[in-house]
């Protein structure tokens, strides 16, 4: 474990050096992600200019859900962005062999290789929105709520990572799976708004199949109302753990089936 941390630190510092090379490009990238979310929030404000509540939620509550959903999304984006490349071209171009020849776990190597600073745009925006809306959204600040908040963010981030991991691992069998990651990943758009506004079929899918509702709506309902922590937080932990387990199995069996594309 200590060794892995040391390796991670070394790879991170290499990453930062590379970032410095293209500093302006990456600042613009992070800024873009921030603007994207700011437009999304602006849109919500325009809607609330006309109506007092949406699906039973006030403006502050909607902003809280929106902001919360950006935090796990940003964390996953920051640390595991290289999984996209596995799906899009690393396997296809035969570059994956490199990871198999190193004396560390290939998965660890893939993830440690890239640190995506652009995600800071989403992360900062999410934290700011949560901070400004939490009080008026009805969140109570107790020590166990703070603890649960951290737990919820970690397990919610794992949902993102697991979905990317499981779909990226399909590339071991079909060479390119980037578009499949994209379709599953895009489902997270549903996480930004309360799940009650969707029809029952979609609600079921984003709760149990591609469980992005647990990366925003459900934990937020608990934090805002204190209702049903067993399902809203407990469900998140169970589903996220289960999904991560399945994703790891897909990855491991995929690795065994992997044949180099050669070059």
């Amino acid at each position, binding site marked *: 474990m200590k060794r892995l941390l040391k390796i991670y630190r070394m790879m991170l510092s290499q990453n930062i050096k590379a970032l410095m090379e*293209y500093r*302006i*490009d*990456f*600042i*613009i*990238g992070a*800024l*873009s*992600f921030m*603007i*994207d979310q700011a*437009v*999304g929030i*602006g*849109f919500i404000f*325009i*809607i609330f200019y*006309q*109506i*007092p*509540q*949406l*699906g039973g939620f006030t403006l502050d509550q909607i902003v809280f859900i929106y902001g919360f959903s950006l935090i796990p999304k940003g964390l996953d984006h920051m640390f595991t962005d290289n999984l996209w490349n596995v799906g899009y071209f690393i396997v296809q171009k035969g570059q994956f062999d490199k990871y198999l020849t190193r004396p560390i776990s290939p998965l660890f190597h893939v993830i440690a290789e890239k640190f995506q600073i*652009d995600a800071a745009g989403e992360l900062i925006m999410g934290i700011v929105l949560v901070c400004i809306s939490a009080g008026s959204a009805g969140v109570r600040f107790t020590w166990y709520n703070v603890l649960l908040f951290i737990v919820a963010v970690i397990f919610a981030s794992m949902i993102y990572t697991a979905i990317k991991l499981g779909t990226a691992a399909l590339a071991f069998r079909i060479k*390119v799976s*980037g*578009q*499949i990651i*994209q*379709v599953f*990943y*895009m*489902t997270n*758009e*549903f996480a*930004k*708004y309360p799940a009650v*506004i*969707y*029809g029952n079929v*979609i609600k079921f899918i984003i709760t149990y199949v591609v469980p992005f509702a647990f990366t925003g709506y459900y934990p937020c309902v608990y934090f805002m109302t204190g209702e049903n922590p067993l399902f809203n937080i407990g469900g998140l932990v169970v589903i996220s753990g289960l999904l991560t387990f399945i994703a790891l199995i897909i990855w491991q069996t995929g690795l065994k089936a992997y044949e180099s594309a050669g070059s």
Partner: protein
Amino acid sequence: MGRVLRLYFPFTRASIQSSLMYSLNMIFFSLSELLYCFVMYYLWKAVFESSGGSDFMGFDMQDMVLYLFITNVTAYLTMSDADNTIADEIKDGSISMRLLKPVSFSMSVLFKDIAGPIVMFCMVFVPMTACVEIYRAVTVGAVMFNIVNFALYLVSAVMAYLISFFMNMCFGFLAFYTTNLWGMGMFKKIVLKFLSGAVIPLAFLPDLLRNILSFLPFASLSYIPVMIYMGKYSTSELVFNMCLQLAWVAVLALLSRLVWKSAIKKLSVQGG
């Protein structure tokens, strides 16, 4: 005209053939874009249910559905990859091959680039627009499809494509000055999405902002053709907006020509 087509059409044909190789990718891509439409659809549904009324700043639910999905399919028709084509060719030096040929640079890029919208028109636009129209006909109980508006829309969409193409040409030439276009590309994509009214209909924005944005070339990319499709313009507004589009096509064509003239002098190809 016939000679031009004979000369440049092979660029289009080759590009269509290579993009058909990746048709599965295209289907997945449009599927994930469609997901976003559905999120917005449910959001609007909730908005209309919460507001209790059937009108939201001059749009009813029908209008909103039409706006969302037609904006989505219009994006496929106006999609231009010219910036990446140029940036990639500058980076790997293959731009010299294009310069050596006895053809116009921008024409050959245009005819290669136009393959994207042509393929998208057949594979995504036609089936999706048909679905939207069927949905409209079923919910309203009468065929709402207006052939005149549709024809005008297609003309407007072609102009929107040309605006998008010339904008991207200018943007691609930035690669002469900077080597890494990724962050800039992301920035352009996100800012354009907002300025063109693809995220928030311009009609919902505060007056001042709306007035400024509707004169900029970005509104011509998406908002104007979609409004034409929906029949939201009076005849005079229609004429005005289409003339505005035409003016932007001319201005941007001229601009991309100027940028090209100054950029070509700086071109130095490493290897290739």
